């Protein structure tokens, strides 16, 4: 998008600069076109596109839309007014993700009553350098693949297929109580698998 934006600006600019001086004078309509390039709207679009990545990143960690929206909004409000002049897009992204990290840290520490230091220590809150990608679904499969058959099955049925506990119990010839315990143990085990989501 950024590239497109630059391309649009420079192509329009070169159109007017390449023109002989006499035609440039006449070409007020053309100049008007250059001036009317909606740069601010585009910049806002770019900001929103970056925030899309932030949203996906946060959503992947909180697993629900309402919290993801709240946290994304916090990131936007904290980061946008502070963007420094002339920062390259990569730095902007870095800043937004650093803010997202801090906001997420605050979210978990407030909800769980833990210091952020404890969170960082225990939950491997490290952020990826790259934005979330399509590879995330594969990463989940990679986590599940490292679990024992029963643990993998219970999490697959519950999370990926949306089964109720009762349905999982029926599928696995078990009881609801036993599935509940297995689900907890499977989640604990999944948390220990070191795969970057």
């Amino acid at each position, binding site marked *: 998008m*950024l590239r497109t934006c630059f391309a649009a600006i420079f192509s329009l600019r070169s159109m007017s600069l390449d023109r002989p001086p006499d035609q440039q004078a006449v070409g007020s309509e053309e100049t008007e076109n*250059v001036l009317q390039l909606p740069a601010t709207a585009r910049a806002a679009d770019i900001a929103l596109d970056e925030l899309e990545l932030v949203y996906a990143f946060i959503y*992947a960690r909180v697993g*629900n839309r309402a919290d993801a929206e*709240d946290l994304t909004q916090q990131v936007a409000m904290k980061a*946008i*007014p502070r963007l420094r002049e002339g920062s390259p897009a990569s730095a902007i992204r870095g800043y937004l993700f650093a803010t997202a990290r801090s906001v997420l840290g605050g979210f978990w520490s407030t909800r769980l009553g833990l210091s952020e230091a404890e969170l960082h220590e225990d939950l491997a809150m490290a952020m990826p350098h790259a934005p979330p*990608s399509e590879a995330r679904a594969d990463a989940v499969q990679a986590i599940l693949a490292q679990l024992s058959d029963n643990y993998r099955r219970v999490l697959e049925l519950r*999370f990926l297929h949306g089964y109720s506990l009762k349905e999982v119990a029926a599928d696995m010839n078990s009881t609801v109580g036993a599935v*509940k315990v297995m689900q907890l143990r499977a989640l604990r085990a999944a948390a220990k698998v070191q795969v970057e989501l």
Partner: protein
Amino acid sequence: MSKPENRVDKIVSDLLKGRRLKLRGADAEEKAAITAAARLAAARQGGPQRMNPAFRKQLEQALESAPKEPWMTRRAALVAGFGLAAGAVAGGLLGRATEPAHTAPVQGGDPINPKQGQWVDVAALSDLVEGQGKRVTAGGVGAYVFRSGETVTAVTSICSHLPCELLWNQADGALDCTCHPASFNADGTSTNHTYPLPSLNKVYARVTAAGRVEVLGTA
């Protein structure tokens, strides 16, 4: 205290229904399992999630209405910040970018003056505790009233940013928005000085000779 497997299943069930994470301090014991559950619940949706169009629009509007920093307008920050400055300056666009299109001062706080408004009895002065907000309704006007000695002041119960109900947070002595992280002092001003939101609309309030609190609302 509920068993950990029951508690974690409650959280899992909420996540699978698309609900918020409602956690308590005691859940810290199972933080690893809970964060793993949140990640798995997110993965359930397939690839990276995109914002809901309505939320994106709302965010866009929030960005547009964001107050300018004293040293640079937000719009200029957006333009400059996203590397468009070079092209913009040369193309004479920065001037446009910094036009005061959204420079409305972040004041707000105008009083609510309903047409055919009428004074509505909402409480006894003795019911109000100093330093504590009380939610009252005067017809179509929702307000928080605050007592200061023998006088009262009132502000609207609706956030100045997103039109959501505010809740009185006794611990912080502030009105918290239920829809997003924003809060306001009893006088209606934003608690966030870095990113101040417009002040809450004031609501006319008075104390009668009989010691009753009245708010200017609607029938």
